[in-house]
C-alpha cells in the first residue's frame, strides 16, 4: 500500500470516529480560550461534521502567549479568538456556542452582555436573553445612527428609520435604542471568517463599479480599498477593523498600541483555512486535487468567473474516474457529485433578478447567469468588486422568516433615487450597507462572505437565517425560481461542503 493511502485511510478513521462521537453526543473540546498560551501550530486539522478543516499559519507557528489576537486585552475577558476560532474556520459555529453555554453554565465571556446577549438590559443569567446567539449564532452589532462616512463626517441619510417590531427590546430601549441620547440601531450578525485575508483585504482602483463613486480609502495611506470587509463594508482596512473590534467586542477602553495592531494584522494576513478532508470524498488535496488550505497560500487573486481560471478549479481531476483513483464506489460517487456541483455553480444559468448592485448596474434585470456571476473572486467566491449586494436575505418580502429579529421600516425621501426593486418604503431586518452610506439604494445590501470552510461554521448568511448548506440552496431555489432537481441540490451542497 502506498503511504499516501495510509494517511488518507487514517484520516478517514479519525473522521469516522468523530462522526460517531457526534452521534453519541461526546463533546470533542476544540475550544481555544483567551490566554490559553499554547502554540498554534503551522498546520492543524480540526474535525467537523463533514470531515476536517485545515488551518495553516504561513509565517510560522503562532506563539499565542502575549499575542494581541489571543489574549483577553479588553475589559470583558474576551479575546479576538473567542469569536474567531480556528476549529470553526476562524468564525464561530452555533454548535460551538451551545457547547460553551453548557460547559460554562453561560459564564463564558463569549456571552458578555454588551453584544453576546439580545440586549445588555436583559437578565444575563437567563438563556432566553441570549437566544439569538444560542439559536442563530448572532451577535448584536450596535451602530450609531446616523453614521459617519469613511472621513468621519456625519452622513445625511436619505431615509428615516422606524422600529416596527423589537423582540430584543434593544432598538426601543431608552438607553440603547434609536431614541436614546446616543441614537443607535442594533442589528444582529454572524462573525465572519478571519482567514484567507490576502484575497479579501485588498486595495482597489479608484471607482466602485457598483456605485460609480470613489471607493473608500485607507485613512492611513490614502489608497483606495476593495470594500469587502464586514457585512456593510464599514471597515476600510484590517487596522480600522481591529480598533473597532477591540473597542466594541472586547470593551477595551484605551486604543490598541501600534505593536498590538501590527501583531493582529500580521496574524490575520498569514492565516489560511479551508476544508481539507471530507468523510466521503477523502483527502481534498491528494492525487492532483488541490482543495484544502495549502493551495491558498500561493493562489491567484482576481476574477474567476471564466472558463479558463474558474473560481474553484480544485476538483477538476475528479472528472476523470481513473485519475480520481477512488478507493470505493461511494467515494467515487461523492467526488463525481462535487464535480457536478462545481459545474452547476459555474455554469448552470438561472434568472438573477431584483438584486441591487447586480441587476441595477447595467447588466439588466433579470440577467441570465450563474452563482459565479456574483461569487466571482478566485479562491474565495466573494465578489471582486465591492461585494455588498441586496440578495433579499434581510429585506421583506424575500427574507427567511426570522420572527426573533428586529424589523425596521425605512422611508426614503422623494429626492433620493429609490431602492430599484423595492421603492421608497422598505421593511428590513438589517439595512446593511445603508446604515453606513445612508443611501436608499443600499438598503439590504450585505457583503457576501467567502465560501471557504463552510462545513465548520453553520449557520449561514449574515443574519444566520440558513441553518444548513441545504437551506442556502433552497433559499436560492425559491428566491430565483431556479427549479433545481433534488440531485442538483445535493450536488451543490456536496460541492459547498468541500470548500
Amino acid at each position, binding site marked *: 500500500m502506498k503511504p499516501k493511502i495510509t494517511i488518507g485511510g487514517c484520516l478517514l478513521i479519525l473522521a469516522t470516529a468523530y462522526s460517531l462521537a457526534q452521534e453519541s453526543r461526546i463533546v470533542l473540546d476544540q475550544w481555544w480560550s483567551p490566554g490559553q498560551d499554547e502554540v498554534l501550530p503551522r498546520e492543524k486539522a480540526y474535525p467537523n461534521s463533514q470531515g476536517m478543516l485545515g488551518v495553516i499559519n504561513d509565517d510560522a507557528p503562532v506563539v499565542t502567549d502575549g499575542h494581541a489576537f489571543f489574549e483577553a486585552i479588553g475589559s470583558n475577558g474576551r479575546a479576538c479568538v473567542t469569536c474567531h476560532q480556528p476549529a470553526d474556520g476562524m468564525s464561530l459555529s452555533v454548535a460551538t456556542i451551545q457547547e460553551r453555554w453548557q460547559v460554562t453554565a453561560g459564564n463564558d465571556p463569549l456571552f458578555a452582555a454588551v453584544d453576546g446577549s439580545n440586549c445588555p438590559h436583559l437578565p444575563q443569567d437567563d438563556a432566553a436573553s441570549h437566544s439569538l446567539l444560542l439559536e442563530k449564532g448572532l451577535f448584536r452589532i450596535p451602530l450609531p445612527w446616523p453614521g459617519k462616512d469613511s472621513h468621519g463626517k456625519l452622513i445625511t441619510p436619505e431615509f428615516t428609520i422606524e422600529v416596527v417590531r423589537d423582540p430584543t427590546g434593544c432598538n426601543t430601549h431608552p438607553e440603547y435604542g434609536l431614541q436614546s441620547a446616543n441614537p443607535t440601531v442594533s442589528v444582529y450578525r454572524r462573525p465572519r471568517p478571519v482567514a484567507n485575508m490576502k484575497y479579501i483585504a485588498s486595495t482597489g482602483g*479608484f*471607482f466602485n*463599479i457598483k*456605485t*460609480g*463613486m*470613489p471607493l473608500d*480609502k485607507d485613512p492611513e495611506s*490614502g489608497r483606495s480599498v476593495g470594500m469587502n470587509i464586514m457585512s456593510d463594508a464599514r471597515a476600510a482596512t484590517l487596522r480600522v477593523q481591529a480598533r473597532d473590534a477591540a473597542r466594541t467586542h472586547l470593551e477595551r477602553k484605551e486604543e490598541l498600541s501600534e505593536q498590538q495592531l501590527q501583531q493582529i494584522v500580521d496574524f490575520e494576513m498569514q492565516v489560511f483555512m479551508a476544508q481539507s478532508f471530507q468523510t466521503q470524498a477523502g483527502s481534498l488535496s491528494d492525487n492532483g486535487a488541490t482543495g484544502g488550505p495549502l493551495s491558498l497560500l500561493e493562489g491567484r487573486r*482576481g*476574477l*474567476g*468567473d*471564466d*472558463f*479558463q*481560471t*474558474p473560481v474553484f478549479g480544485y476538483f*477538476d481531476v475528479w*472528472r476523470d474516474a481513473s485519475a480520481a483513483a477512488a478507493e470505493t464506489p461511494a467515494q467515487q460517487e461523492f467526488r463525481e457529485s462535487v*464535480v*457536478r456541483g462545481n*459545474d*452547476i455553480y*459555474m*455554469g*448552470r*444559468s438561472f*434568472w438573477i*433578478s*431584483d438584486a441591487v448592485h447586480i*441587476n*441595477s*448596474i*447595467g*447588466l*439588466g*434585470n*433579470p*440577467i*441570465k*447567469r*450563474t452563482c*459565479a456571476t456574483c461569487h466571482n473572486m478566485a479562491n474565495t467566491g466573494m465578489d471582486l468588486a465591492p461585494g455588498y449586494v441586496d440578495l433579499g436575505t434581510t429585506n421583506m418580502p424575500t427574507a427567511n422568516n426570522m420572527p426573533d429579529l428586529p424589523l425596521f421600516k425605512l422611508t426614503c425621501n422623494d*429626492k433620493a*433615487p*429609490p431602492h*430599484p*426593486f*423595492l*421603492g421608497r418604503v422598505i421593511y428590513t431586518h438589517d439595512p446593511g450597507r445603508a446604515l453606513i452610506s445612508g443611501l436608499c439604494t443600499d438598503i439590504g445590501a450585505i457583503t457576501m462572505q467567502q465560501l471557504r470552510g463552510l462545513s465548520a461554521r453553520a449557520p449561514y448568511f449574515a443574519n444566520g437565517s440558513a441553518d444548513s448548506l441545504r437551506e442556502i440552496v433552497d433559499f436560492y431555489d425559491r428566491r430565483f425560481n431556479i427549479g433545481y432537481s433534488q440531485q442538483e441540490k445535493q450536488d451543490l451542497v456536496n460541492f459547498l461542503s468541500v470548500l
Partner: protein
Amino acid sequence: MKTLQKFTIQVLCLTVLLAVGKGAFAAEHEELVLPDNTNGQPISFVSCPAIQDTSTVPCWFADHGDTRYFLGIQQDIGAAFHPPQLKHRVLVEGRILDGYRLCGAPVIHPVTISVLPEMDLQCNEMVPAIPGIEPPPHERGAGPSNDGLEPRERAAPQPLPEPPFEAREFVLSFTFDSAVMRGTVTRIISQAFQYARQIDASAIEITAYRASSLLTGGQELIEQAHIAESRAEKLHTIFLEAGFDEDLFSVSASPGYLRGNGIADHLLRKAVIRVIP
C-alpha cells in the same frame, strides 16, 4: 505547454457543456457590428421593456405603437448596450435601422436606454424562448466569460500634452433622471484627472445640466429639477476624493433645462468638465 492548456480548457468546456446539457454557453463569436445609421428615422418613447429567452443570452425589446423593437442583448458590464430592467419603464431614444431584424424584430440603432428610476410593477414581461429566434453573434454567453487568460484591459496612457497648454473640455452624458456614473462616464472622468495632473491645472470648472427629451408622439419629458445639482455635486466629490485641491473648483448647475428636439436628446443630459492650465 500552451497547446496543452488550450486542450485542457476545451475539454473542461466540453465537460461543462455536457454536464449542463443546455448549451447555455458562449460560442466564440465576434460581436455583430451594425452600420452607423446617421440618417435613420429618429424615434423616442417610454414603455415597459420586454425580455425574451433564447438558447443563450436573452434579447431585450420595447414596444412603440404596434411595433416591438429590438434594443439589444444581455452582455457584460463593459458592453456598449446596458439592458433595461423589469419593474421599470424605459426611455428609448435612437434611430430606426432599416433592413435589419434581430431576435426576430426591427431594430433601433444607435440606441440609448434610460431606466426610469421610479418603479412600475406592470413592467414584468418575460417571454420564453421561441425556436428559431436567437441573438446576434456575441462574446459572452449565459455562463462564465471566455477571457480568463486575456490580460485585463487597462486604460491606454494618453500622450503627454506639450506646452503651451490649452483649456480642455470633457463631456459626460447621463441617463434620464440619473446622476449615476457608469463605466463610460468614469473613463472620461479619469481622462480629465490625468489631463489636470499633467498640466497642473490652475482651475477646474464643472457645469452640470438637465434636459428634456421630446418623444415621438410630441410629449416633452423633463428631468427632475434637482438632477443637475446632483450631477454637479457628485462630480465635485469625485474630484476632491481624487486628491484635487478644493480651491481649484468652480461648480455650478445650469439653471432651467436644455430642450430636446427629438434627435440625440441624450447628449443634452450632460456635465462639462473644463480643465484650465
